[in-house]
C-alpha cells in the first residue's frame, strides 16, 4: 500500500470526506463568514473586523468569558484533588474497593443534560428543606443568585467527573512499581514523604492528561449549563458555549456568533497547547 495505490485512497476516503465536510470545511468557511454580515442565508457585505471589535466591547461575552474561566479554574482544582484522593483511597486493599470504583464512576455515563435536571431538584427543593430543618440560611434560594449558580455548576461537575479523573489516576498509580514503595518504607520514609518524593513526580503524566481533560471540559461545558441554571439569573451564569449557541440560534445574529466561535476556538486551543507544552517540559525536568 503506497500513496499512489487505489487501496490506500479507498481505505481513507470515507473518513477524509467526513472530516472534511463536517469539521474542516465548516471551520474554514466559518472563519471567512466571521468577517461578513452573514445572516444565515445571504451575505450583503464584508465588514472586516467589525464583528471582532464589537464582541470585545460586548459585556455579555466578556461576562461569559470570566464566568467560564473561573468555573474552569475551580473545576480543575477540585477535580484533580477529588480524583487523586479517590484514586489513592480505592487503590488501598479495601474490601469495598471495587464497589466504590463502580459507584464513583457511575455519574459519568449519564448525560450532562439529565444530571443537570436531577441536581436542579436537589439544589432547589432538597437544599431548601434541609436548610430549613437545620436552620442554615445559606442553603436557601440556590440557583437564584450568580454565586449559588456558579457553585451549583461546580458541585455538579465535580460530582459527575471526579470518578473519571479517578480512573486516570488509578491507571498511572498502578504503573508505579510496588518495590519502589516497599524500598522507601524500608528506608523509613513516612506516608507524606513517600507521596511527595515518589508518587508525586511519577504522577506528572497523569496531571498532564487530567488537567488537559478537565480544562477543556470546563471551557466547553454546555449541557449542564443549560439544564441546571439555563444561564440565569439574568444571563449571569451563561458560559461561553451557551453564549455562542444563543447568539446564533436565539438571536439569529449568525456572523457575530461565528466571530465569537472563532475567538472561542483560539482560547480553547491556546489553553490546550500551553498546558501540554508546560507539562511535557516539567515531566522531563523531573
Amino acid at each position: 500500500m503506497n500513496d499512489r495505490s487505489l487501496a490506500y485512497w479507498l481505505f481513507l476516503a470515507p473518513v477524509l470526506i467526513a472530516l472534511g465536510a463536517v469539521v474542516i470545511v465548516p471551520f474554514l468557511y466559518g472563519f471567512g463568514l466571521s468577517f461578513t454580515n452573514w445572516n444565515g442565508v445571504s451575505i450583503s457585505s464584508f465588514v472586516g473586523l467589525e464583528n471582532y471589535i464589537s464582541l470585545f466591547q460586548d459585556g455579555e461575552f466578556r461576562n461569559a468569558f470570566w464566568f467560564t474561566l473561573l468555573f474552569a479554574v475551580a473545576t480543575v482544582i477540585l477535580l484533580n484533588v477529588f480524583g487523586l484522593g479517590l484514586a489513592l483511597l480505592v487503590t488501598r486493599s479495601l474490601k469495598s474497593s471495587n464497589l466504590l470504583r463502580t459507584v464513583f464512576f457511575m455519574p459519568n455515563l449519564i448525560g450532562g443534560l439529565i444530571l443537570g435536571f436531577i441536581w436542579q431538584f436537589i439544589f432547589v427543593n432538597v437544599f431548601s428543606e434541609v436548610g430549613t430543618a437545620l436552620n442554615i440560611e445559606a442553603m436557601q434560594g440556590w440557583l437564584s443568585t450568580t454565586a449559588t449558580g456558579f457553585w451549583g455548576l461546580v458541585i455538579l461537575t465535580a460530582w459527575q467527573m471526579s470518578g473519571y479523573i479517578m480512573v486516570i489516576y488509578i491507571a498511572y498509580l498502578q504503573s508505579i512499581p510496588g518495590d519502589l514503595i516497599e524500598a522507601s518504607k524500608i528506608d523509613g520514609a513516612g506516608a507524606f514523604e513517600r507521596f511527595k518524593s515518589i508518587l508525586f513526580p511519577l504522577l506528572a503524566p497523569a496531571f498532564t492528561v487530567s488537567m488537559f481533560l478537565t480544562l477543556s471540559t470546563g471551557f466547553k461545558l454546555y449541557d449542564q449549563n443549560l439544564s441546571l441554571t439555563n444561564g440565569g439569573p439574568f444571563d449571569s451564569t451563561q458560559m461561553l458555549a451557551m453564549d455562542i449557541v444563543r447568539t446564533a440560534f436565539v438571536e439569529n445574529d449568525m456572523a457575530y456568533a461565528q466571530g465569537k466561535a472563532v475567538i472561542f476556538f483560539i482560547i480553547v486551543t491556546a489553553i490546550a497547547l500551553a498546558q501540554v507544552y508546560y507539562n511535557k517540559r516539567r515531566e522531563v525536568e523531573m
Partner: protein
Amino acid sequence: MSMSKAEKRRLVPLEIAGIVLGILWLIPFYLMLTNAFKTPDGIFESVMALPGTFVWQNFVTAFQELDFLKSLFNSVMITGVSIAVIIIFSSMAAYALARNPSRLSTTLLFVFVAAMLIPFQSVMIPLTSIFGQLNMMNGAGLIFMYLGFSSSLAIFLYHGALKSIPKSMDEAAIIDGANRFQMFWFVIFPLLKPITVTVAILNVIFIWNDYLLPSLVLGEANATIPLKMFYFFGQYTTQWHLALAGLVLAVLPVIIFYFIAQKQIIEGVSEGAVK
C-alpha cells in the same frame, strides 16, 4: 500480598470513610428515585422522607409523554449505526496510514489529531447551514456528522494499536491469496478487538448522551432520549413528580448498560484517556 493484623486494623477508618463517601455519591440517585414515586403533595411535605404510597402512575404518564419506546428506538438506532460506521471506516483508515508510513500518511495523521482541538461550537453554525442546504438535517446526516467528529480519536487509537501488529501477518495472508480487503477484515481487524471495544464504549457514552448536535439536526418527531427529555422537562418543571419519573426512565438504560459491561467501560475509558 498478605497483611498483618495491625495493617488490617489501620485500614478500618479508610474503609468507613470510603463507604460514607460512596453513600454520599449515590444520594442524588436515591432522591430522584424516591421522589419519583410521590404525589405532588408528598414532595411538598418532605423530599427526604420515603414515599407514603408508591405512585406508579407517575411512570406511566412519563412513559407516554416521553413517547419512551420511540425515543429509545431513535437513540439506539442513531448510536448503534454511528458506532458501526465509525469503527468500520476509522479502522480501515488507520490501517492504510499505519502500513504506509510515508510523509503523506504522517501529515494526514497530524491533520486528524489536530482536528480534535477544534471545539464543536466553533464549527456548529456553518455546519448546520451547509447541511441544511444539502437537505441532510436528518438521522443519516447526523450519523455522518458523528463519523466526522469521532473518527479522529478512533483513528489515533487504532493507529497506535496497529503499530504493535507485525507486518508479517499481512504478508502471510497475501501469500495465501487474500486481497487487501479480505486480509484486513479477516486477519487484522479481529486482532484489533480490544481497541474496538474502547472505541465503541467511548462513542456510546458520547453519542447516547449528546444533546446539542441532535437538537440542531433532528426535529421533535425523531428525537433521541436527551432531546425528548429536554422538551418534556420544559413542560413539567413545576410538576416534579412527573419530571423525576421521566428522569428515572432516561437514566435506566444507561444504568443497565453499566451493570452489564462495567469492567469494559472503566477499562475503555481509562485506555482512551491515557493514550
